[in-house]
């Protein structure tokens, strides 16, 4: 018997709302299987199982907001599955034994009840403050809201009434899944905008419309603000930039892509990411996490790809073990991530655990981007636009495609000379892409 707890998907996440469950008590799950969906400030994510077993109980009802670390699913060890189709001895452990009740005549041998015991959807103290001190706990653990009677804050109800908004389809993000004024504002914006609503009801912020109270603040903005504020407060950044001539790299890429179908064509960004990943092997103090006053380098390179959401805001889904990816695999992973991020289809396992981040604002035309490190990481690499620039070649002025690669790194962990060596190494690798 073990509990799956709400995972922390990022340093700035401390709670999430359970959107739905994909499993039911009695279901067998393997590690990595989809359990359900959770919603955070940054959107809706799939929740993967961390271990194999049989679902004994779902501890939190959909619509309930719980803090990180709260047990949400109870698993028990998998019972050997009967090989035959015969449903004879399900004998679910801990099944409430009904037979003693004399008024239940069919109970004893009802063989078609192999389903595991009706797991009580026990609301396990949703906001359970384990805090021993002066509790701020709600007076009583509230029951999970019925889907037909969602909680609505008084203010949200008032605004909705003023605008004739039907709350039936509105997803609540507040305490106990309550619909808040922000939820109402999003719903109003969605109703009034011609554009389709955000996918899967994710709380993608919308710009304030005429119907939106001016006081409504974008939650995504807040989450980002919290992370970058913390970063700028705690991390002493240093910044370097390095211009790289991509003449050779792009020429190689053109040849490489020439006889491939569109779907397999490699983007310049993939080349840049691969060079970065490879260069990290020589500068371990840029790859890892700084927590509790100490830096832990990582042998694996888990690259967070900073991705803008269509509605505003940022996420940084991670390509795990990028050092093992071929160029084609990296390219595919990048495309996939961007696509799924924008569709709101990221999985929880893709959000945490980054050891370095890459931000690319090249397609917006900027020359250089000086990034803000995503705690607890210690470095972020930025790519500007690849643009034709005057470039001295053998004492002559030439025009070359040039990119400015930047590094923002944590000075507690590394020094500028190491960062400079790292950028130079990336530049060198981009001169001979075929070797990679």
């Amino acid at each position, binding site marked *: 018997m073990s509990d799956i707890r709400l995972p922390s998907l990022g340093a700035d996440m401390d709670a999430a709302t359970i959107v739905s469950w994909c499993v039911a008590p009695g279901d067998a799950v393997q590690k990595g299987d989809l359990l359900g969906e959770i919603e955070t400030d940054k959107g809706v994510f799939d929740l993967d199982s961390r271990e194999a077993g049989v679902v004994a109980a779902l501890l939190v009802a959909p619509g309930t907001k719980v803090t990180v670390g709260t047990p949400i699913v109870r698993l028990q060890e998998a019972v050997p599955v009967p090989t035959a189709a015969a449903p004879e001895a399900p004998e679910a452990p801990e099944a409430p034994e009904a037979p003693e009740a004399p008024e239940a005549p069919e109970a004893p041998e009802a063989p078609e009840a192999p389903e595991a015991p009706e797991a009580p959807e026990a609301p396990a103290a949703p906001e359970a403050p384990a805090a021993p*001190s002066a509790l701020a706990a709600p007076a009583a653990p509230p029951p999970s809201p019925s889907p037909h009677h969602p909680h609505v*804050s008084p203010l949200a109800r008032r605004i909705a009434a003023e605008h004739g908004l039907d709350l039936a389809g509105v997803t609540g993000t*507040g305490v106990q899944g309550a619909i808040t004024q922000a939820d109402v504002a999003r719903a109003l914006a969605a109703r009034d905008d011609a554009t389709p609503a955000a996918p899967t009801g994710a709380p993608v912020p919308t710009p304030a419309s005429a119907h939106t109270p001016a006081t409504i603040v974008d939650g995504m903005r807040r989450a980002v603000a919290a992370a970058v504020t913390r970063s700028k407060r705690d991390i002493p950044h240093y910044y370097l930039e390095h211009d790289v001539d991509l003449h050779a790299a792009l020429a190689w890429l053109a040849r490489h892509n020439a006889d491939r179908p569109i779907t397999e064509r490699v983007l310049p960004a993939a080349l840049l990411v691969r060079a970065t990943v490879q260069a990290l092997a020589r500068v371990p103090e840029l790859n890892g996490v700084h927590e509790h006053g100490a830096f832990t380098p990582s042998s694996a390179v888990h690259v967070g790809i900073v991705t803008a959401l269509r509605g505003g805001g940022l996420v940084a889904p991670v390509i795990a073990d990028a050092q093992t990816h071929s160029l084609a695999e990296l390219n595919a992973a990048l495309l996939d991530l961007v696509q799924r991020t924008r569709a709101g289809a990221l999985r929880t396992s893709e959000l945490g655990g980054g050891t370095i981040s890459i931000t690319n604002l090249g397609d917006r035309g900027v020359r250089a981007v000086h990034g803000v490190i995503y705690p607890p990481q210690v470095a972020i690499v930025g790519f500007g636009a690849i643009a034709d620039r005057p470039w001295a070649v053998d004492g002559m002025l030439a025009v070359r495609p040039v990119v400015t690669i930047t590094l923002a790194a944590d000075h507690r962990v590394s020094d500028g000379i190491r960062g400079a060596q790292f950028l130079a190494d990336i530049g060198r690798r981009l001169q001979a892409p075929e070797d990679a």
Partner: protein
Amino acid sequence: MAEQAQAPMPSAAAPAPESPATPATVRMTYREAVREAIREAMHADPRVFVMGEDVGAYGGCYAVTKGLLTEFGPERLRDTPLSESAFVGAGIGAAVGGMRPIVEIMTVNFSLLALDQIMNTAATFLHMSGGQCNVPVVIRMTTGAGRQLAAQHSHSLEGWYAHIPGLRILAPATVEDARRMLAPALADPDPVLLFEHALLYNVSGDVPPADAFVPFDRAIVRRAGHDVTLVTYGGMLARTLEAAERLAADDGIEAEVIDLRSLRPLDEATILDSVRRTHRAVIVDEGWRSGSLSAEIAARIAEQAFFDLDAPLRRVCSAEVPMPYARHLEQAALPQVDGILAAVRPLVTR
């Protein structure tokens, strides 16, 4: 902590730049501020005198009145026997008899020995006499925990007193308020109880010129914010401000912090105005939760700003236990910054 407690309040402390005679801001401890206030009052008005246990020769249990015996003599700095009811009652009688007594009770727990006089005499006389008998007495006492003084010296019972019509209850949380609240309290024709949190006496802070002082019955917004209103007073102000800074830094949550200053009457307007802007409120009170001042504030918000609320009201109060001696238990029993953070964070969702 001190510096935070003294955070400037733009609305409150607007200086008058033209006035060349404006004396400079002075820095002192909370203890010195109370002492200076007493000294000033005694110089200004011969009717003012101080009475209480060990206020004279000993210099005050918390050294607030140290040195005043030499300055004013034993007639005006009166040591009393351990007779809380008698000397508080005597203060009430002396006030009716034309004096302006400042009665000091060592701690709020001891004040219960004089509760009869405070409740049944001081608070009732004006009404019971059909408006004939004002009781212009000032009663000062320490309150609050944090010094491992266990279950008979540590409680925060000011909320009980705030229950009683006829009393004015003040809780100076800053050095400036400690310095400036006594004079208007003495000028008040009705009984005033001043609660000084024991942990504040050593705190240093700035005392701006007297003309910058905000009337003592007004709450003050000590920190502006738009996401949530934190209502507090007295000894909890500093840690509430600390929590607000952490919320801003870690969560991007901008909390508005209101220092009540006057627990009775309550400045409802300031509380409600803030909640109508932030739509969320958390009350931080060192008193117990049940039947408390925090409950009163929550009820008033619910009564008068219900349709402005976007989240449930929350309270951060002391654990419902007589104050334990052991430090770890005492700290666990008291509202702490983490508890405030835990109460606020779930409320501010987007």
